[in-house]
Structure formats: C-alpha cells, structure tokens
C-alpha cells in the first residue's frame, strides 16, 4: 500500500513538473502581488515590492 502511495506521489511530482514546464510556471525569485499568472508560484525567494 505504502509503495503504491509513494508511486502515486512520485508520478504526481513528475506530472506537476511537466505541466509547470509546459505552461512556464516558475518558482519565481521575484514577483509581487499575484494579479497575473499563477498565484501559488508567486511566493518568490526574495519577495516583491
């Protein structure tokens, strides 16, 4: 059971990576108020304005 769960997780990560690459989603290192694009990715490493 645990093995199946892990595979689901693994392939989920893989699928997420593929989708993000396709749509240009990025774990951005900047960006601010998430009025555009995908809010989830706008955490940014340095923060925005």
């Amino acid at each position, binding site marked *: 059971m645990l*093995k199946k769960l*892990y*595979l689901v997780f*693994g*392939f989920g*990560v*893989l699928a*997420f*990576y*593929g989708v*993000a*690459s*396709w*749509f*240009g*989603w*990025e*774990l*951005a*290192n*900047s*960006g*601010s*108020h998430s*009025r*555009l*694009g*995908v809010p989830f*990715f*706008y955490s940014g490493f*340095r*923060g*925005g*304005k």
Partner: protein
Amino acid sequence: MSVLQTNCPSCGGQVEFKAGSTIVVVCPFCRSAIARTDRGLEDIGKVAEIVDSESPLKLGLKGTYNGTRFELTGRAQMRHELGGSWDEWYATFSNGWVGWLAEAQGHFYLTFYQPLPAGTMLPTFDGLQLGQNVTEIPSPTPLMVQERGHGTTAAADGEIPYKLTPGEGFAYADLAGKDNAFATIDYSMEPPWVFIGSKVTLDEIGLGDAKPVQREARRTTAASMGCPNCGGPLALVAPDKSERVTCPNCDSLLDVNQGNLTYLHALNPPPNAPDFVAPVGAEGTFPDGNTYKIIGAVVRSVTMEGVQYFWHEYLLYNATIGFRWLVHSDNHWNFVEPINPAEVTSAGMTVSYNGQTFKIFQDAPAVVEYVKGEFYWRVEQGETVRAIDYVAAPLMLSQEISQNEINWSLGKYMTNDEVEKIFGISGLPRPWGVAPNQPFTGRFYYTWGALPLLLLLVVAVFMIPLSGLTKTVLDQQITLPPMQNATTAQAQFSQAFEIKGNNNVRITAAAPVDNSWADLDVDLVNDQNQEVESVNIPVEYYSGVDDGESWSEGGKETDATLSALPAGKYTLRVEGTWQNWQAQMPVTVKVEQGVNRGVNFCCAFLLLLLVPVLGFFRKFSFESARWRDSMFTSSGTTNTGDSGGDDE
C-alpha cells in the same frame, strides 16, 4: 530368473532362491538365514524380524531404472552405531544386475557394486577425512566423504545378494557428489567394496505410486509401554525411527529400542532459556507444499564472549518426505532442509550453492541444552557440534560438523505471519533485531521507487526544447533623470514589447553603480488591460582593497524571474532611487523569455530523491544491524565488535 526351491535346513519349510544373484534367503517360517554355498545350503543363524516402519516400499514391488525393470526381492535393516536405523532394499534387475536401494530418513539412494581397476588402493577407514574427495573412485563428479561410521545388520527379509551374517558389524563411508551422485565404501570386505549410484526419488525409479504405510501412532500405556519412570502414557509419531523420546509427564529422557522404553535421566531445562512457542504435535502445510508435524523440539545455544545465546529448533516429520527443521531464533523463523554437501563449493570465507554465494556469518560450537518430544538420533543434553552459518538473505546455509559426519542444510527465512498461518495460530512474539538471513523488504524504494526520478531526467531533457530556448524580447537603456531629493523616486517607461504566453520572464537590470547602490522597482504593465506585475531589483556594487587584498561585493547587474504571464503587449515602467541622487542614472533593462533556470527541476529532483535516499539509508542501517551480531564483517574479516559491521 532361475528359481531354486529347497527346504529350510532348520525347520524344513519351503524356501525359494528366485534370483541367480541371491546368496542368502531368510526362511519365512523360522527366520533362519539360509546361505547357498558350493557345499549346499548352510544355516547361518536366526535373523530378527524387520521392525515395522512407514516405508512406502515392500518386497515384490516392481520398478524401472534407466529403462530396465527390477523387483525388490530382499531387505535388510541396519542399525547405526549412534542410534537410528536404515533399510537396504535389494533390487534384482531383469538383466541380472543387483541394485542396492538404501532408504534413510525419507531419502533413497540406488547404488550398484563397482569393481575398481586392479591396483587401486582406497584410503583406509581410519585414514578417511570428512570432506575429503576420494579420487580413487572413478566417477564423473568428485565424491566427497560425508559420513563415516559403523553399522550392524539387525534384521533381514527375502533374498539377499551377499552373505549376510545376523548381528555382524561393519564399517562404511558415505560419499556424495554433485548432481545427486552417491557412493558407499563397505569396509567389511577386504579390499573394500565400492557401490556407486545416485540419490533418487521414487518417481525416478518407477515407484512413485508407492505410498507410506498409514498407521495410527502407537500409544503406549502405563500397562504396556508407559514411561518407565512415572508410568505416564506416551505417543510416538515415528516409532520405527525414534531413538529418544521425552516423557511429557515427568520430563525424563527415554531411550527407544524397538518399542521398548528405557529411562535414561531427568531433563533440566536451562534457567535462562526462553520457552517453546510452538507445541510438539502441531501440524501444518509448509511452503514446499508438504504437511509436517512437529515431533520434537530442541533448545540449543552458543556462547560468545561469555554470553549464552539460545534458540529453538523444531523437528518436523512427514512419513514420505522425512525430517525437516523449523528454527526459531530471536523470534525469527527459518524452514530448514538438508542438502547435498557435494553441491556446496567453499572459497574461503564464502561458499557457493545453487549459483548463489553465501557469506560466512558465524562459526561456533552449538550445544543441545534441552529436548522435548521424540528424535531420530540419540540426542543428549550437552551434545555439541561445530556449527558454521553462511548467509545470502533470505537463505542461510548451515554446516554442522561432528566427529563422524558433515551435514549441510539450507534455511529459508519465514515471517511470523507465514508461521502463524501454517499452524493456524496467532500472537507469536514479534521478532527483534535483524536475523542473519532476514531479507530487506525496502528494496523497492531505491529500485522501482527511483523510476519517477529517472523519468524526471527524461522529461527534463525533452522539456527544454519543448518549452522554448531563451529569447530576448527587450533590451533597452533607460536613463532616469537626477532625483529631486534623496527620497523621491524617478520613473521612466520602456518601449512596448511582445510577451508570449507559457514562458517565464526574466528581467535583468544593469546600472553603473560603483561603491553605491540603486534600488529599482520595475513594473510590467499589460498594455491591453493595464494590469501590473511588479518586481524589485536592487543593484549594488562595492569594492576596495584591504590589507593589500582587493575585494568586491554585489554586482552591477541583477535579475528577477517571473512565472509566465498572459501573452500580449507590455511596457516596462522603471522607477528607482539611488545613492548619488543628484546624478542621472542610466539603467539597461533586458527582458527574456524561456529561461531555463532549473529551479523547478531541482525542486522536483530533490523531492523525488528523498525516498530513494532514505531507502538506501534504511538498507545501510539494516545491513549494519545484521552484521553487528556476526563474528565476521560482511566482507568476511573477523568482526572486532568496535563497529557495527560494514556494508556492501
């Protein structure tokens, strides 16, 4: 067959020498052994009756070996010097051959007399070493001495192809070779006779339909064969094979001699040994598909550095298969079967068997501490053998060396659940630690579990061209006029440019700062809907020389990356403050798309790497724990006990 009918010189009853090879016939009326000699018939003494056994064979059975038909025409029962007995059946073949079909503990060995070339000198009985190859015997495979011992002719029936003398003792050596090769040297003759053949199954010799005699277990009673010490009743499961039995009522060890019980001594269980967890008498079907009954249980121990370690061995019995063992140690279980010693190849600290390499794990004297039930040998408290264990999880090869015998057995690890299912019980104590041959069950996480990781690499390689290569969509210099004061920012717009959807955006700003800073707020303004995405890009650069060493910090160019934006026409609004506010600030801004920063890949890679790495760590810990209890390390060197053992 040339039948010779005659009368028994002892009782006058009619006896027949059916086979030309028959030397002795046992008179079925008076049990005299009648030998056919040059001078006529000779009565060579009374022969005891065959002890009733559960053998599937009987006189008159017909079989086929290598296309030649045979009939079982005679039988002798031999007693081993250390207790126990075996049967020898004499197979008279249609072409005149005589085969010796030995039956011991459920195994069958068919051998034929093999004259040796003139001048061949076999090793003497005393000169034979256990484990040595007897190269003087012509054989396609080397024959290794497995056992040497003494036997006595105890009983006989039918026609015997040699001059059998009742009660006569003889020395013998059993040899084993690869591919079930088997040989016996009979030292009762001078020079010794050699019999060569192989271990066979009843199916292989056309006797597969022979079934073991089904009988009720003999139940002795106080009136007939009760315990000679306390008079309590006893039940023997394998009365014809048992040499020792313990009384469940008074815990005495009894000798079994053809059904007669003799009190030997009281048994004292060692005070520190754990109790048996499986009852004698329990029955179940094992992974090999056969049903076995626990008929005996033994507590054994080894002593390491002054500490005594105990384990239990349960003797399993099946009338057709013979004996097997179920070993219980630290609440781990192993099903153990005997194997052909000649199939094991030793190479120093490792041995090979059936294409697998086993590493040495333990080499210590194993002592019998306590017994319960019945046993096919004359078991004694204090009985000691040298026991060497080799492991290749889930298998364990064990070698036991006594004075006259070398035995190899193969154990296979069983889980508690499997054992509980076999006996229909529950609540067996859970194992602790790692057993020497316990298989590691987490292999999946660093084998198949690494599949998403590998696929990530493949996907990443394909996604680079698919998601586009880096493309510059704006590269422009914007000059910000001098600030009115140190805090009021200046702003300028860039020219308009096109941004594609589904591509990330990197904005790079360069300013000619030198030991100063410029703080730039850059807005990406969508010309269609005026929506704004803002990033802050601080640019600062400091350098100097300290103690003759030049240094620098920061840079004159900084970038910020955004996720994909909706496609369309955009303009940059660059607003900034800077340290030298009285001067204008030329800023070069560059906007790129399809930048492969690898952040997504790194995050996914680390996420997917986590479980395989943890799997490897678990494997390492597991193997360390396995070898911690060994006298050796996994590489075969002696374990000093300082470390937890090394790993593969």
